[in-house]
């Protein structure tokens, strides 16, 4: 048993729903009690979808358990087929139905319906939402594309002369972080490169579209958490190579263009020369100087977290002070990336642990999920959302991809907006007693009325530092209070580290300035 306040991922059947809901022409019959119907609201309320997810729940009750829940399931499948006339059925069990072991796959097949049935076995007590999405997409791809797999060893047919190269775009799903707009942006980029998109899946794909996946020469994998497993099968079955770079940020987008161009055998130079993004110039613009070395903590799904860390360092000039993910399946990728930034990777889905790590790292900006947004709010730190889990705010009305060149513009705006602007920082540093520009004021452009300056605090007592026996002398404590709050944590930490290294027991005003000289900024 695990004590859980908030969960980053839902159960695996919610992942399956994200695939079914993204696709056209499929219907998912889920053996589940009535409470599990809550999952519909994820799609109708958070993503504001205008249709119900294509899901029928058996909603068995306690009194059914003594009777024939298998018959209940069969009736639900039969009725769902009759009403919705899908081209294919997905069937499976949620956590409770898994315990009663009714074998949804076998029961559904026994009905001999005139459409394919994909049986999903998603172990609820072991796996989570992203795994469920990946497994479902893989099963769907195998089920519908399987019959067109050539015999092993068959070489890929040559592209006919004059034909444009073709690829699939894999991974976008329902309830994904900006998937809707990423697909548009990346499709546009591929078209500019002279590459046709064969199928986008699962988003908008029918079973018939899935059956055509083998026609493409290679696969663009936008979200490895969802499409990695299916892409590996497609590579084995059709000899389709898959992209490795995820085009989030300018550098990664350029890597992606080069990678795709090599796979397709096209010349990327015109598209690379175009690079129509404002991010590089905005980051070089003199007013962005104040962004230099800002401490950022990055947490999310592995793909978005690793990508965000690179953008943060290489394209914004930040310092990455923390990097982590809740996706244990992708822990290796995050551990590798963490080495680049010399930080301890955080692989955890324990909200309280993540909160503690963020607090300890004292970042000036958190790039995280909706969970970290709450953590940052509690800690009074700026935050931008970079990854699922999502909330209604993560489905903006405007076009807002995070991939490709336009995506880089979106990242610049989204990450800089929560921060205090450069001149404002200076004013706070200069005029610390000002009634508007004081420590507790929020960035003025964020619209909150300046809060009244709080009552002067009483004279500080000597404070024992967290590090053990170190003590801050009252004057030093007062002096550190004069440092603007957004760098105060760093100053305090550096001073304590310095004092410990010097074997000091008390931190004086001199220690503070000695440490400042030692570390510089």
């Amino acid at each position: 048993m695990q004590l859980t306040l908030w969960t980053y991922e839902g159960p695996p059947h919610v992942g399956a729903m994200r695939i079914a809901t993204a696709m056209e022409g499929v219907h998912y019959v889920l053996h589940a009690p009535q409470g599990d119907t809550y999952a519909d609201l994820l799609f109708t309320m958070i993503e504001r979808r205008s249709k119900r997810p294509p899901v029928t729940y058996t909603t068995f009750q306690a009194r059914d358990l003594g009777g024939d829940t298998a018959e209940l399931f069969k009736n639900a499948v039969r009725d769902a087929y009759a009403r919705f006339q899908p081209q294919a059925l997905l069937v499976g069990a949620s956590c409770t139905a898994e315990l009663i072991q009714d074998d949804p796959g076998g029961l559904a097949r026994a009905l001999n319906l005139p459409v394919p049935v994909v049986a999903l076995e998603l172990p609820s007590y072991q796996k989570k939402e992203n795994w469920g999405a990946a497994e479902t997409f893989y099963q769907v791809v195998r089920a519908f594309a399987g019959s067109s797999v050539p015999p092993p060893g068959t070489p890929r047919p040559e592209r006919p002369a004059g034909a444009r190269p073709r690829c699939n775009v894999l991974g976008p799903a329902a309830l994904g972080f900006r998937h809707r707009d990423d697909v548009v942006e990346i499709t546009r980029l591929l078209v500019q490169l002279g590459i046709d998109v064969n199928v986008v899946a699962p988003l908008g794909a029918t079973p018939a579209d899935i059956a055509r996946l083998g026609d493409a020469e290679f696969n663009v994998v936008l979200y490895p958490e969802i499409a990695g497993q299916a892409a590996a099968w497609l590579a084995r079955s059709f000899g389709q190579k898959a992209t490795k770079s995820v085009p989030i940020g300018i550098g990664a987008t350029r890597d992606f263009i080069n990678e795709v161009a090599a796979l397709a055998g096209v010349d990327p130079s015109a598209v690379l020369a175009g690079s129509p993004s404002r991010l590089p110039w905005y980051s070089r613009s003199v007013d962005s100087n104040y962004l230099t070395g800002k401490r950022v903590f990055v947490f999310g799904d592995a793909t978005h977290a690793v990508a965000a860390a690179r953008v943060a360092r290489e394209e914004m000039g930040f310092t990455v002070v923390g990097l982590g993910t809740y996706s244990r399946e992708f822990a290796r990728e995050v551990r590798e990336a963490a080495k680049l930034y010399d930080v301890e990777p955080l692989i955890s889905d324990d909200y309280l642990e993540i909160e503690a790590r963020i607090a300890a790292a004292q970042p000036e900006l958190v790039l995280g999920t909706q969970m970290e947004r709450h953590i940052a709010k509690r800690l009074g730190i700026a935050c931008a959302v970079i990854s699922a889990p999502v909330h209604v705010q993560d489905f903006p009305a405007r076009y807002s991809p995070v991939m490709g060149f336009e995506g880089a513009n979106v990242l610049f705006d989204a990450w800089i907006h929560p921060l205090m602007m450069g001149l404002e920082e200076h004013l706070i540093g200069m005029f610390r007693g000002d009634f508007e520009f004081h420590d507790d004021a929020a960035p003025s452009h964020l619209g909150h009325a300046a809060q009244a300056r709080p009552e002067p605090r009483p004279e500080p007592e000597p404070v024992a530092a967290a590090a053990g026996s170190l003590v801050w002398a009252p004057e030093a404590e007062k002096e550190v209070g004069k440092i603007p709050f957004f760098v105060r944590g760093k100053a305090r930490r550096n001073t304590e580290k310095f004092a410990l290294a010097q074997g000091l027991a008390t931190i004086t005003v001199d220690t503070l300035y000695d440490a400042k000289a030692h570390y510089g900024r």
Partner: protein
Amino acid sequence: MSTATTSLSATAISGCGDAPVLRERGQREVFCGLTGIIWLHRKIQDAFFLVVGSRTCAHLIQSAAGVMIFAEPRFATAIIDERDLAGIADCNDELDRVVDQLLARRPEIRLLFLVGSCPSEVIKLDLSRAAERLSATHMPQVRVLNYSGSGIETTFTQGEDACLASLVPILPREAPGASPNLLVVGALAEVVEDQLRRLLEGLGIEGVQFMPPRSALALPAVGPNTRYLLAQPFLADTARALEARGATRLPAPFPLGAEGTTAWLQAAANAWGVSPERFDAVTQAPLDRARRALARHREELAGKSVFFFPDSQLEIPLARFLAREMDMRLVEVGTPYLHRQHLAEELALLPAGTALSEGQDVDRQLDRARTAHPDIVVCGLGLANPLEAEGISTKWSIELLFTPIQGYDQAADLAELFARPLNRRLRLKV
């Protein structure tokens, strides 16, 4: 559809005439009883709700809450995993460990509810024994109770019923020879409690107690001299438990709308022998005020049709209010469960011939709603946007549990909840 077992039974219902009740058994698009934790954890401020369940349970509560609340919540889930199911770990040992961990972190907790879920029920984890064991360990600091919010046994608001019923055995016994005392049962907003208390005191009924209390340390006393009024229509088990302690229910409609509030207060007044003059003196001014405030909304709502999907069990009192005070037309009034005894006074007030339905087959009910094309549908969050996209205005029923709607001074707020979606549709030109 063969899944649905549908029967029309012409059960005689007084007042509502012999309106048949359409009973359906198909897919039910409703929350389970765990959802009640969303408001109960705010109501009893030193209580904590520990769901013993799956990741689905945890995901349900945080999703149904709509927001992930900024403060650390007073609820959590002990997620059962493979090791527990395979018997590698002993579920009871694991639960003890999780509870220790929780109590160490939250020393201010005085009352801990272990809340059963579908998985814990199916694996037959005995939470009542666990609660006894944990109480023995943690009393007097923390008392541990248990109830089931599982979706195989409870629907949405039945979770509150199960929670309150679990509190009844620990309520203190009223003093021997106590004078008659009044207990109001069902979670209400504090502002509503205060208003109702003032009105009841005005009638001369002193020392009114409310359940659930705001603090686990302020449990109301109960005994043979306790008369209780239900403030919510979904408290069947709680009522049964209170009666087992000797308390007597005062039958009444529910305090929704001006008429409902008056009738509810009247039930108490009758039991206490309050004179008609005194009753009028206390209620006339707020009643007039409520009617004035309602008049504005009646202009917008009169003649409009409303269709209730089953959800909160508030449907029948709400339908009565909308029909009688707002002159709306009732197309279908669906309720997950029809408690005839507690709703007898409400049913008597419903217009004759009202189409009632109990249980659900959501696809068939959607067909009926589309055919009827009512002006407004009251339904759960999963259905609201799809219906809006089809051009039908909706009211999310969960909002009716989070908004103060009972009593005279909230009557117009209640009407406004239905008027706003219609008003919005009129305003929008896009």
